[in-house]
């Protein structure tokens, strides 16, 4: 159905206790009409991918401010691929230096949202790029 809300997983990978941004985004996307599953803090890539699979989400959004994005983000991308979720849109946000963005995109991330990104920009990107489904 075309009026079905998009389902988004907002996840905090790794040992990073800063979830203000993730919560603001979860709330903001709710107000944009998305169904947002929030995982809570300190998730392993396996936990995130299990949640994405069980919830059958359209989008996985990874919020990471710890500096470990070059390790954790490609791992989540690879695990999603391993488990057949090649049609799930992956985005990242938080504190990610511009220099790292090409490598993250190479690993499967569709977009990196840094500080200053508005909720509306994220929402528009997800609506435009999330998979069509049956």
């Amino acid at each position, binding site marked *: 159905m075309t009026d079905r809300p998009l389902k988004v997983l907002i996840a905090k990978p790794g040992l990073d206790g800063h979830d203000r941004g993730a919560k603001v985004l979860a709330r903001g996307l*709710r107000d944009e009409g998305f*169904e947002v*599953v929030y995982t809570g803090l300190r998730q392993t890539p396996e936990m995130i991918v299990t*949640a994405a699979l069980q919830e059958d989400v359209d989008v996985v959004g990874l919020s990471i401010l710890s500096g470990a994005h070059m390790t954790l983000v490609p791992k989540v991308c690879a695990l999603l691929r391993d488990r057949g979720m090649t049609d799930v849109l992956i985005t990242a946000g938080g504190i990610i230096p511009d220099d790292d963005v090409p490598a993250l995109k190479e690993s499967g991330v569709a977009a990196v949202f840094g500080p200053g990104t508005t909720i509306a920009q994220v929402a528009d990107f997800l609506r435009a790029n999330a998979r069509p489904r049956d």
Partner: protein
Amino acid sequence: MAASPGDRRLHASSGDEAAIAERANALCDAALAGDRRALARLLTAVENRTPIAEAALRRLYPLAGRAQLIGITGPPGAGKSTLVAALIAELRRAGRPVAVVAVDPSSPITGGAVLGDRVRMQAYAGDDGVFIRSMASRGHAGGLSSATSAAAAVFDAAGFDTVLIETVGTGQSEVEVAATADTTVVVEAPEMGDEIQAIKAGLLEVADLIVVNKGDRPGAHRTAGQLQAMLADTPREARPGRPAPKHPDVLVTTAATGEGVPELLVALDRHRAAARGSDGTATRAARAEAQIWAVLADRLHERARSIEAAPIAAALLGAVAAHELDPYAAADRLLELMAGGGASPSPVEESD
């Protein structure tokens, strides 16, 4: 507004139908063989009420009916999600598979939702014996989503022996879960009200078990005692034409530490054993009735929405707004329209 699956089938060619049946069968085959991604996809189809879901349920429904569906309900913040997490741990210790349907409310304004129940249930990433699915209520009142029963049936058919259904945080009268579950657990927190709250009609009347959670807080045992005292006055005999009154045990748990949870599982198993006998027949009949009525109401609602765009609907609405026509007469006209199929069909989507 999208056309209902029923309407769509009228317009679909037989080729489409065959494709839908084939896709549904492929998903069912994979899900029944243990493919968790296929299971997740089926649940999405059920949630979105697609034609694939109806085809799949035709096949899966006869396989269901073996699991114990346990409804966990109660006010926001009483500890439902934490109690569900503690029950998962207890069931897994016994090697029993468990599925969870956790419902959170949708925004009545934007349709969006934050589904946060998983936060407390994350410790089972590598365990195929646990499957947790969050669902938004999507405008459905009563504490569940309209697809909750069907989702539970899918889990049941897929071999999950226990299905925990966590409602949205409920007030006093969201009792729908009792018609959905085999066993209804009402979770209360200490000091949530006095004896007058306990004798009010509603949620407590449908409980098979009452759990006072946060048992480490002062007042927990006093709250449990008050509830017990109130329940002692419940009549033993059913009045003619009414369901037998329930006599729930009152348990105290501290879900965060797991205290009292093994006793809760014992009580749940006892209720399950009782429900297998004649005790459960009336419950099962009531559940079938509730399910059929819910589907019927959904279908009628969709039909009603499909004629919403018809010019006559706008004319009727205008007439009622101007007090030229009363709302009852307008609703009757729309009902006639739906029954006669007189409205121009809504635009039907060719793809979904």
